[in-house]
């Protein structure tokens, strides 16, 4: 899963940094690159057994990256996912619950909501799309495909928003016109997850 997300980020990190230059400090791509490298390293050496353990470990690995706002948000989300009881990965409903637990954990860290031009604009619709696909009985890989599409749509929608959180908020109107880098990363993560699941199914 994380390996495919890493692929996406590796391909796009320069454009992510460029996006962050517009209203932020231009480091989002390198931060995400360090984040996926840390995730891969952690997964390789991990002795975690259950998916809960793996997610908690992955989340705290991300929280260990010096990444500013984005790693704190992403790490809290992943670690929060690990707090829910997930059971087997293939269980779509459990995974949906886990995503929702991740979102709940995030509410403790940020007041940003969809519409504020942050990672939440991709994360919230992705989780919602996954949950509704799950409740309508779809497979994990199908649900993830829908989540990825929702994340992408959410990220794209940030283009016309004004930033209300993070470094960009001080720029006001000037932030309109380009998508939020953090939301774009989230979309890439979900795209990676979806690709990984599709490959697993095909294999």
């Amino acid at each position, binding site marked *: 899963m994380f390996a495919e997300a890493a692929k996406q980020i590796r391909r796009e990190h320069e454009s992510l940094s460029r996006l962050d230059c517009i209203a932020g400090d231009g*480091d989002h791509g390198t931060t995400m690159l360090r984040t996926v490298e840390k995730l891969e390293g952690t997964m390789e050496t991990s002795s975690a057994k259950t998916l809960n353990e793996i997610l908690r470990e992955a989340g705290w690995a991300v*929280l260990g990256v010096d990444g*500013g706002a984005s*790693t704190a948000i992403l790490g*809290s989300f992943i670690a929060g996912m690990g707090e829910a009881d997930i059971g087997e990965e293939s269980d779509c409903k459990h995974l949906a619950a886990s995503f929702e637990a991740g979102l709940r954990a995030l509410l*403790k860290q940020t007041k940003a909501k969809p519409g504020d031009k942050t990672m939440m604009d991709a994360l919230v619709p992705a989780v919602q799309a996954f949950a509704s696909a799950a409740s309508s009985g779809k497979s994990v890989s199908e649900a993830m495909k829908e989540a990825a599409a929702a994340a992408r749509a959410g990220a794209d929608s940030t283009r016309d928003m004004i930033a209300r959180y993070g470094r960009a908020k001080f*720029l006001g109107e000037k932030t309109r016109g380009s998508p939020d880098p953090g939301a774009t990363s989230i979309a890439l993560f979900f795209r990676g997850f979806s690709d990984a699941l599709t490959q697993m199914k095909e294999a």
Partner: protein
Amino acid sequence: MRMKKFINDPKNLVPELLEGFTLAFPDRIRLRGTNTIVRATPKEPGKVRVVTLGGSGHEPGLSGFVGKGMLDSSVAGEIFAAPGAVKVIEALREACAGGERALLIVLNHAGDVLAGNIAMQAAEREGLKVKMVLTQEDISGEPGDRRGLVGCVAVYKVAGAAAEKGASLDTCLEVAERMERNMRTLAVAVRTATHPATGQPIFEMGDDEMEIGMGQHGEAGTGRMQLKTANETAEIMLEKLLADLGVQPGEELLVMLNGAGATALMELYLIFRRVAQLLEAKKIRLLRSAIGEFITTQEQAGFQMMIARMDPELTELWDAPADAPFFAKL
């Protein structure tokens, strides 16, 4: 164009710079874990620990203020990026290792606050006695959501002095919050800096422009205008600060001027001269001052002006001895 900085591989910037820092002050500080700076000689057991966190690239801030009478430890992040929350938790654990209590001082920037909050939640789960104070004195933002600028140094100073004297955590917190409430800062920038990791300018600015309200990482301000003289700039900034803090004649102020990097001390002297003249004319007492480079933004040109209303207790704490590599009081 290659950036004109003496660096090696940008990937190793932070560990290398902190290694150089510890090599330069071997009798004062130590490196712990990944990029945390602690005192070489820890404070006496039982006394409150004062801890901070924040991005690198602002040297001497923040780690340059670790030392007797100021900070116990400083958790450094990447260039302009908050440290990971995990490192902050570890620093709090070490600070409280002997059962001590700790005060965590955090500048209000999204990443720093997130790291601080996550660490505080973890610390509470572990039963550590830790309190956090946010510094947010940049008057270019709306009250309630202001950035933390150079004022943190004054908070380190008074909270550090209280802790050194053996004050309780509640007292240290109260002192830190009082200093924080009493202070206001405004920044001005005239020339941009290059981000040492990306090689990109952190903002753009015209040849005859300056910008009042600029943040510490090139975050845009609200007052782009034609370049002004030292006297004019001092007047504009001081008036805004005095109004925001509501300073009355007869009150006593601490004034800090913090050079951004490329602005010469010569220029800060000129600004300071005008500030002193204006305060005298308004019958406001210039009680204490600090002038120099405390929290820089690489080779950006500009400065931060900070004023703070002082009371006898804060003044005594400000005057107390301190012996950090970049802040000494005899």
